[in-house]
């Protein structure tokens, strides 16, 4: 099962962390976005400003994912 986390304001729209068994056809970040957008109100992961971190590293949309991975979606960052 893959772990999917939603950071910052995404936690308001996407809810808490999900444990998902990825369908065999779902192999990269783009596919995961589409899968989650279909489930969630208002397709909150559509914008290109929403990026993904896979196992602690920022990933591109074409990065391969498996059921062993932890994926976090995040909106624009900024502290201070």
């Amino acid at each position: 099962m893959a772990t999917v986390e939603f950071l910052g304001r995404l936690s308001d729209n996407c809810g808490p962390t999900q444990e998902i068994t990825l369908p065999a056809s779902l192999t990269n970040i783009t596919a995961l976005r589409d899968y989650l957008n279909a489930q969630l109100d208002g397709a909150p992961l559509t914008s290109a400003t929403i990026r993904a971190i896979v196992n602690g590293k920022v990933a591109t949309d074409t990065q391969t994912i498996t059921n062993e991975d932890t994926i976090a979606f995040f909106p624009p960052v900024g502290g201070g």
Partner: protein
Amino acid sequence: MVTSDPLFPDALLAQVTADNPHSGAVVSFSGNVRMDKDDGNTCALILEAYHPVTSNGIAEAINTARSRWELDDVMVRHRTGSMKPGETIVFVAAAAKHRRDAFAATDFLMDYLKTEAFFWKKEVYENSEKWIEPRAQDYSDAKRWDKKS
């Protein structure tokens, strides 16, 4: 580096100063939750981080600063969780032989923290709350350092 405990700029500056008796110059930056007179109803600021990505990113930015400028020491402390107006969100200090290096490194690290560090920020008012993203000014400030690389 990232902590949910309160930050005290004076104590942190005292520490950097004591740790670096060989440095001629120490620059510090403290970022505090503003008590805006115009915006009297800000109750709190909430900062979220994502461990260990947040700390790793800051450590990398510190390495970049150390490679660009001649620094004796760098301190970065960023708080997470809920903070009240007047409390310190972030403290950065750089100790160097010469002041230009200390100024540049502190300025650079603050631009990193404001636009690239893995934090998410929410303002809490009496009856509502709002997620805050960097201002256009923050992004253009951060771009200043690209030219130099």
